[in-house]
């Protein structure tokens, strides 16, 4: 029984009949889903299934390259850009141009029929299969390498130049030219001194918050040399929130301590 079954059902057929419908469904879902992220993921699914089919068609190198390059690099690049552009945007399926959807579907169906017929006519005779070709150089990868560096070396070199150009192009495109000059350290310093010259604004940093014996949080105001409170020393937001702490009260314990020390020192000096 199994001897009869095996020639009828090959692994390629199994792969095809499983991956095929999944691919088609995923493709349809890709073009119908509202969120771009979903579309990208569905496309990734399509590509993985394609890789499986490549493998079933005796193209192991392409199977791997498809997954690594196409799915792994290109689709991830898509996902990055989707996230950059607007992962939240929900596309609408409302069509503004009249009759466009219907015509597009008809065009799609027509294209399918056309391709199927036109390309099907190119199939004359049974499939030869690439086992023999794969064995010529001792493996699929070696055979492909022989082709790439042999017959198609010019195309290969051109393609590599293309890749370099693409990378350079991407860098150039992403390079946004400044419309205004950059406001760097030098400019900042100059601006400060100009402000001081014209408005008398304080060029330096603001005084930091006060440090007292028992409090040194940033809400403690600092005392100026003449004993008054510096209003710049505490952030305006904190002042708004909770008001300015009483600097005198904060300084009181230290003053008391100094006063007690003075008294003690005086007694000591009197004793001597």
């Amino acid at each position: 029984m199994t001897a009869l079954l095996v020639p009828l059902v090959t692994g390629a057929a199994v792969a095809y009949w499983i991956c095929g419908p999944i691919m088609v469904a995923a493709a349809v879902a890709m073009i119908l889903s509202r969120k771009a992220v979903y579309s990208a993921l569905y496309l990734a699914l399509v590509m993985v299934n394609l890789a499986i089919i490549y493998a079933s068609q005796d193209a192991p190198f392409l199977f791997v390259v498809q997954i690594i390059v196409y799915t792994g690099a290109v689709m991830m690049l898509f996902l990055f850009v989707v996230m950059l552009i607007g992962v939240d945007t929900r596309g609408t399926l409302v069509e503004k141009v009249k009759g466009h959807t219907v015509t597009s579907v008809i065009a799609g169906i027509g294209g399918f029929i056309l391709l199927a017929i036109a390309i099907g006519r190119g199939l004359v005779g049974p499939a030869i299969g690439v086992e023999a070709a794969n064995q010529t150089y001792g493996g699929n990868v070696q055979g492909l390498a022989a082709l790439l560096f042999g017959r198609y070396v010019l195309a290969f070199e051109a393609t590599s130049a293309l890749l370099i150009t693409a990378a350079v192009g991407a860098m150039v495109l992403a390079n946004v030219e400044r419309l205004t000059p950059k406001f760097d350290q030098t400019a900042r310093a100059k601006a400060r001194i100009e402000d001081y010259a014209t408005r008398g604004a304080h060029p330096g940093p603001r005084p930091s918050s006060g440090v007292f014996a028992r409090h040194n949080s940033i809400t403690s105001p600092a005392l100026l040399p003449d004993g008054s409170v510096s209003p710049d020393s505490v952030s305006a937001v904190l002042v708004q929130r909770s008001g300015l702490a009483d600097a005198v009260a904060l300084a009181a314990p230290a003053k008391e301590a100094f006063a007690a020390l003075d008294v003690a020192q005086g007694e000591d000096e009197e004793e001597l």
Partner: protein
Amino acid sequence: MTLLEGLTPVAPTGLFPYAWLLIVVPLVSAAILLLAGKAANSWGHYLGTLAPIVSFVVALALFADLLGRPEAQHAVSVPLYTWIATGSWSMGVGLLIDPLSILFALLITGVGSLIHVYSIGYMAHDPGRRRFFAYLNFFIAAMLTLVLADNYAVLFVGWEGVGLASYLLISFWQHKPTAATAGKKAFVVNRVGDLGLTMAIFTMLAMFGSSSFDAVNAGASKMSPAWVTLLGMLLLVGACGKSAQVPLQSWLLDAMEGPTPVSALIHAATMVTAGVYLVIRSHAIYAQTSAAALAVAIVGTVTLLAGAWIGTSKDDIKKVLAGSTMSQIGYMMLAAGIGPIAYPFAIFHLLTHGFFKANMFLGAGSVMHGMNDDVNMRHYGGLAKVMKITYYTFLMGYLAIIGTPFFSGFYSKDSIIEAAWEKQPVLGALALIAAGITAFYMTRLMFMTFWSSKRWAEGVHPHESPAVMWVPLVLLAIPSVIAGMVMNAWIAGWLAPAVGGEVPANPSWLPHLSLIGVVTLVVVIAGVGVAYLIFGRTSIPESVPFTRNVFTIIGRHDLYGDAFNEAVFMKPGEALTRGVVAVDSGVVDGAVRGSGALALGLGGGLRKLQNGYVRSYGLTMIVGVIVVALALIIGRLV
């Protein structure tokens, strides 16, 4: 009596090679007067008067030369130059001086010179006097070209020239809308006649290869009856236009808008007689077709009655005289239609009519001059005592026109009535009745103008005209009286060889009294009597009296000629024009605009394809790919 088929022209000798001076002198004078501009205002009229006098002297010399020759040499051909020479066919310009044309030339230059002299005085206060004389000279040159031509084409050049001169002179006072309209009307109606003449010339060129009188005279007998009748009818149409015969008569009364010397020269003596000249010159054609000749006679008869009818109802003195002119030319056409017997009578009447009608027109101008240019006879009256010379000369013309025995009109008109009666009694009877009507309305004119009591307006002081005006009147009155007696004996014999007529048996200066002549006289006296009863005994009303008389109403409206023209020709013509304009703007312009609108619409529709969406463009591309691929597959190319 022998029937001669016309004279063979001989080569020019003596003064004849200079016959072209007749035409060139007035033409050059006209050119000088027009081109010299205002600088010639002070002496222009003298030059303008001198030119026709020079032509008259030359014509007199040529006439004397012809008289001295034997009869066979009475026709002299003076070839001038070749006009068109194309290979096998050529047309030349030349003059033919024969008995017919020399009489015309004398009439034109003689009467023309007198009218020029008269115009010096009549147009003395008009700022355009120099231009007037230029146009008059141009007219003289053109009319002479017409009568002296030796082929129909050159005749046509003169024909058109006199038409132009008539237009220029009728609308001389261009600022008056009525004058301008009258000029246009004259030109347009003449054009209809010109159509007939041009078609006739084309027919001649097609049939004979030449339009010269020799060729036509020789070839007329060889034409088929249908063609020769057609030719005769076409020439008749041309003659009707120029001579104001029915049905192309509507312009003559309006032509009285022009100055009176113009009416005298052009619309009485000379231009309107060009039609008669044309018919008589084409005698060879009319001899072959009795139908066309009868048509000429009928046209003449109808016109002589119509003109007389109109003359009875008009209060404008010039319009009465114009109606009278129409009627008298009808007599001439009747005579021309009767046949070779009556050709000399037609010319005879033409000459006498030229004298007495020009006389009367100039007299009317003199009356108008004295009455501050008022033409309404109801404002005249009693002028006989105040303007004696004008009155007596006018009286001579009046007696001539009604056919008083021994006056010039008697001989010529009676001959026509007799010939008509012999040919066709109906025509003769009608001509007879018209003679009575002529007497009636001319007597009415005399009563209203000279004999009745004064009906002058305020501030009008009629006075005799200056000498430069009454001397030509006298000089014209003399032939009105004696021309008949002088020419009767001689004219038939003089003209007959040239026009294929018959030489009468015993010409004399005595009136040829027959039964018809007596009856005519009785009818004339009756007409005078009726006019006396109506106008002589009661006073003439100063405003147009209301009348229920159908004949008077029709006469006052010019026999509804204008209304007829308007209804039959103008309104359909206007409708046709409107239709053509509608087609032009609707169909032609519509097609043009429609194609533009189509392009716009197409563009407007197609541009909707460019909606800016890349997806639409992609769809178009893909659909295109599918279509092309399908085509290739189905065509089995792939």
